[in-house]
């Protein structure tokens, strides 16, 4: 009955699939950690248990088991078997609890940062990650694309120098690049701070000094990602651009004697559409992508949180972050699908003619 509104139908259809993906992803997120045979409470007990008598250790352990919902509990008391050993909760029950908690925005309690809530950790860290990544990605993408398009359009000397340069840049692993930046601009010639999000003699506030300090600490991490990103984008844009250059409509535009900027604009806009996908995806991967950069610069972002969680097998934390990543990436992909649908008449028209996507 949606035949009348092809675009709407398209959107709904996509949304449907993405929702399905989301559900499955959540389930996998939940199951994967539990495939490993090791019981996370042991990790805490390893630290908490040392020096305790066996009896005390056992009681403490049960306290945690109950807390993390790993044992059956009826009205506050642990359900026990004949030998008085607590009965472990089944995966299904655990999954049930998990979903219940997620639905109210509770991602559980971090093992390693116990008794801190995962959601709180994320709330504190996420702004930093976004602050570090969002501008970097946008700048890198825009500048990369513009340079790429120019290289494609101008060719000649500019391209001959620019292209290998960009290619080289893009083949740097960005963390290697980060290390080199730290080594040179922080150790050899101490121009910029090598770590942290802002000077330690400051407390986060809306003071000028604070934001300056943030900006100052921002430089190295920014360039460690920006340059490589821009390089990569430029390469992609360049070959897209060259491809478009060969197309008839560009030739025709030249035959018609359109202004150079106009032709460049044609080129840019059409070559850009595929690049949009790249943008959305890298925005979606922000969280996961920040990991190593944040490690190298001790940047107080979410990547750091994930990393410490990884090193301590802090499953609730890992799960929480993975869930976040999942959501971001899915949203990103979804937006791409929709955006392309709207920005690219080719697709849009395709819908109206009813070919589906």
């Amino acid at each position, binding site marked *: 009955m949606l035949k009348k509104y092809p675009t709407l139908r398209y959107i709904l259809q996509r949304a449907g699939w993405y929702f*399905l*993906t989301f559900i499955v992803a959540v389930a996998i997120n939940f199951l994967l950690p539990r495939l490993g045979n090791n019981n996370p409470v042991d990790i805490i007990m390893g630290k908490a248990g040392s020096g305790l008598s066996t009896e005390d250790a056992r009681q403490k352990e049960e306290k945690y088991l109950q807390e993390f919902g790993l044992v059956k509990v009826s009205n506050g008391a642990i359900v026990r078997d004949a030998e008085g050993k607590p009965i472990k909760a089944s995966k299904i029950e655990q999954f049930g609890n998990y979903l219940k908690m997620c639905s109210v925005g509770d991602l559980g309690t971090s093992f390693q940062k116990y008794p801190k809530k995962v959601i709180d950790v994320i709330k504190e860290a996420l702004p930093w990650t976004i602050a570090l990544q969002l501008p970097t990605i946008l700048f890198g993408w825009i500048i990369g694309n513009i340079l790429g398009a120019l290289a494609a359009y101008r060719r000649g000397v500019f391209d001959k120098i620019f292209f290998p340069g960009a290619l080289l840049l893009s083949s740097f692993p960005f*963390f*290697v690049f980060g290390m080199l930046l730290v080594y040179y601009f922080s150790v050899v010639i101490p121009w910029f701070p090598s770590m942290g999000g802002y000077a330690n003699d400051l407390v986060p506030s809306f003071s000028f000094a604070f934001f300056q300090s943030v900006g100052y600490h921002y430089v190295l991490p920014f360039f460690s990602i920006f340059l490589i990103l821009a390089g990569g984008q430029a390469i992609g844009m360049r070959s897209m651009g060259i491809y478009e250059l060969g197309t008839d409509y560009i030739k025709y535009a030249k035959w018609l004697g359109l202004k150079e900027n106009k032709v460049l604009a044609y080129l840019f806009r059409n070559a850009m559409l595929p690049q949009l996908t790249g943008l959305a995806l890298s925005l979606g991967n922000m969280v996961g992508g920040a990991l190593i950069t944040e490690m190298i610069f001790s940047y107080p972002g979410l990547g750091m949180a994930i990393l410490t969680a990884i090193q301590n097998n802090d499953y609730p934390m890992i799960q929480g972050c993975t869930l976040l990543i999942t959501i971001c990436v899915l949203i990103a*992909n979804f937006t791409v699908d929709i955006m392309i649908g709207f920005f690219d008449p080719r697709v849009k028209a395709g819908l109206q003619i009813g070919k589906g996507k």
Partner: protein
Amino acid sequence: MFVIGIALFFGTILIALVGPVIFTITMERVGPQYAPPGGRYFLGLNDLGQDYISLLIRGLQSSLYVGFLAGIIATTLGTLIGIYGGFKGGWVDDFLNMVTNLFIVIPSFVILILISSSFKEGRSLTLIGIIIGMTAWTWSARSVRAQSSALKSKDHIALAKMNGANTLKVLLVHILPYLFSYVFMVFILQVASGILSEAAISMIGLGPLDTVSLGTILNQAKNTGALGDGVWWAFIPASVIITVIVFALYLINTSMEGVFNPRLRK
């Protein structure tokens, strides 16, 4: 450009293969911690007094190994899924899309820790290669998919379908050959990204525990404070090697693009 790329790439491979013949590879301790470059060990020693030449050659070997292992797995998976989805279209396509998205949204490092934690002897180089491959196929699937769905409408294929050739036959006989050059380029990129991912994974301390790789060399250098002490030989040579390999692969890829996509020539 192609020539340079090939030259660089085979250069590195040569080092990996011939290196052990020229230099005596030893994981033994040969001198003091972080002895600076000079004399026989012209790339210096690491924190355990091991010779960096040996380490780098071993590292190069394992990085290439991981790269190719991951590349082959990822390309195969990606191509098959991509071609099939693009060719079939409809709900099959949507479903495969979903699977692809699933692999995109679950970060590979999560899978890596969780899987490796269930192996008693810990993470081996091969395991890492496999996991990278298993998680990296997604984008090649996407791009191959686009290509094959474009091909689908080509006359000769429509014809073959009409003549009632079964899907598999059409895929293998009529579509794959057309995509071959494309798939090969995808493979090259996958190898490059495989090498990069290994390094990244090693950097966050999830690297192989059974051997040295360029990634673990860098990680070790970082953990043992080489940056602070200005021990440049601990991380610059490894960085250079990684970059060169990837650069070489990119060069090859782009120049091939130029060949197979006439428009990029000129």
